[in-house]
């Protein structure tokens, strides 16, 4: 491929505005060719806001012949069908997570990308966060001793500046907090600790809705042996917001409040101390951002320099896991919601 990578961004919602568009505009080998949104006024406003000249289109089909790649930042249910169309048009794809809302759709996308020899990368930006990369090194280096388990809890009142609100539509989102946020965490946990060999999954979907809370016990088998972990997610209340990995020597903490660091908690001369691990890299502004690094990896993948850090096949394995969770769900007990002896009551 010669020249800059011509990119169209599909979907001009919150994630495009704050992450994907700044990444494309900052990358020296990327050229924004088009912003696509059914609401063309929103797309045009975004272009004006960023003082960028590009095509504004309502229909993604009209731009597929003019670009080398697309970033698919549309609602979840539109990921797979549009990936398929793009790949069939010979266009590389960086798709927002989740790759698809079903494993069947995700698999079809992966197979087509392989057949067409095109890049299908999935937006798991946590992989590119400095804190995640440091934790990988901490684990590799054996700093924690033998790994005993992890505790991964993320939650708060939902405040994502959603433009379309599709997150609360089961048909469009495919699920709730697990497929929306848990997909990131499962991706990194499986990357570190290996495939999940068994799990116990609970959520608070009342049947036909989407879950706001998840309690997931996981058992991995990987290069660090058998690892048991707990994941808790919430859209309704605050949780500790950190990943804690416990080892025989000490424990590590990845706090949500600073994704650039890993905290090591250990005893030193009989005292509990916390050490902060931070990479000594220069602050490159937005180029230090995980979305920029994700785009850079995608561009290099299209250039044939390196593989995508998260390709479709890896993302598929996480979709399969999420699908199994939903299929084997137990309801989180809510004794405060159950009232007996009422003529209004129908057991839920």
């Amino acid at each position: 491929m010669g020249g800059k990578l011509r990119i169209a961004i599909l979907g001009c919602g919150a994630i495009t505005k704050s992450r994907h568009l700044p990444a494309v505009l900052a990358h020296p080998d990327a050229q924004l060719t088009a912003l696509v949104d059914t609401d063309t006024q929103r797309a045009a406003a975004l272009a004006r806001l960023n003082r960028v000249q590009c095509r504004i289109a309502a229909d993604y089909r009209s731009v597929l012949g003019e670009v080398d790649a697309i970033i698919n930042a549309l609602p979840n249910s539109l990921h797979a069908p549009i990936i398929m169309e793009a790949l069939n048009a010979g266009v590389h794809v960086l798709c927002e997570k989740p790759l698809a809302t079903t494993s069947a759709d995700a698999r079809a996308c992966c197979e087509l990308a392989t057949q067409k020899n095109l890049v299908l990368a999935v937006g798991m930006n946590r992989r590119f966060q400095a804190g995640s990369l440091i934790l990988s090194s901490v684990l590799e280096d054996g700093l924690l001793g033998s790994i005993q388990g992890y505790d991964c809890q993320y939650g708060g009142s939902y405040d994502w500046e959603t433009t379309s609100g599709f997150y609360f539509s089961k048909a469009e989102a495919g699920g709730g907090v697990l497929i929306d946020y848990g997909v990131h965490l499962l991706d990194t946990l499986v990357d570190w600790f290996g495939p999940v060999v068994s799990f116990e999954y609970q959520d608070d979907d009342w049947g036909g809705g989407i879950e706001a809370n998840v309690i997931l016990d996981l058992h991995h088998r990987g290069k660090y042996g058998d690892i048991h972990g707990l994941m808790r997610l919430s859209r309704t209340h605050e949780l500790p917001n950190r990943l804690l990995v416990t080892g025989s020597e000490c424990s590590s903490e990845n706090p949500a409040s600073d994704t650039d660091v890993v905290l090591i908690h250990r005893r030193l001369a009989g005292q509990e101390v916390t050490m902060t691990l931070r990479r000594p890299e220069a602050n490159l502004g937005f180029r230090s951002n995980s979305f920029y690094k994700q785009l850079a990896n995608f561009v290099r993948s299209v250039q044939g320099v390196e593989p995508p850090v998260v390709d479709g096949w890896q993302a598929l394995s996480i979709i399969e896991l999420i699908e199994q969770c939903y299929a084997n769900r137990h309801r989180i007990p809510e004794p405060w919601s159950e009232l007996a002896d009422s003529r209004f009551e129908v057991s839920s």
Partner: protein
Amino acid sequence: MNWLQKPIFVTGATGFIGGRVCERLTQAGAKDVRALVHTVQHASRIARLPINLVPGSLLDLASLREAMGDAKIVIHCGLAPARGILSSTENTLKAAAAVGVERFVHMSTAAVHGLTPAPGSETESADLPRTGDHYCDNKGRAEGIVNSFHRRGLPTVILRPSIVYGPYSAWSIRLVRELRDGKVTLIENGNGACNTGYVDNLVDAVFLAIETEKAVGETFYITDGERITWGDFIRAHVPMVENAPSLNEISKQEVRDYYRRQPGLIWGSIQQSGQLLRSRELRMLLRRIPAMERVQTALWGWMQAQPEEKRERIRARFSPSDGASPESNGEFSMPEEVTVATQTGTVFFSIDKAKRILGYEPRVPFSRGITMVEQWLRFANHL
């Protein structure tokens, strides 16, 4: 036809009471529930339910009409800011009247009698006073609008709960946080009437208001009917909090004296503005606005032209007031005047009318309600 089989429209569905109404409708087997959602980010709780989330705003009649569709029952728990209470209620009534709903349940409040209801307001027959509080007075006026629609043929029922508590309630969330921080103060030994209403008892009353013909056009106080004081309510939360510092105590008079010593609104605002303007950071920020830079330069020049004695007097006028403030001693924060007003009432509202006409019988006693609150607070990581 059972009312649960009919389309039901709920406003305020992303809030504490409306959210529980939606859950209870689901548990009761309602087939077509439409929950109005203004701010989609707040919909996590009700998105778990097999109900329809419909976008719209109480302040936008067209969007309300579309959201309400052909609903036969409207449960209006929505709350707009104080000045929007009237228009939001009127809009909901207009939309309901236009589609011919069969029952409109309006969630009012016992606070229509003010934050400290006067003796005599125990029953629904008492006239509504002008309280001087925006929220209370507008909720009272909103009842008037509801009644005017009833006179024009809309089958309305007004419910007046008081202190509604339960899982997800801000009362309990805030209380355990403040207990942990040692910031809870019992006013007048906590003897004030609390008029608690467990949220499920209130929802029972909503359902009864829908299915009771004689309820149409009536207004009902809805509480648990127990004479729970603010001291009882607060003390019930104390054992939930590990190592909670002891409760502070203060009299109404001490609070009054404290606020009497504080500068009034206008002078207090001028003082605060003066203090803010004295901060270098703000001055530097303001200087980025060309007009403000000129004003600052002119003011500075004027100040420099004054005799030193006068300059000192001006500086002193804009200094923070000294004197010992109970807030500054680090032991407790002075209750706000609104808290004092809320927690020092003597009136326990009567639920006799609700019992007589609706057949309302509060089935969750305070002791059980508090247990369920604690279970939820633990789950939701508040304890």
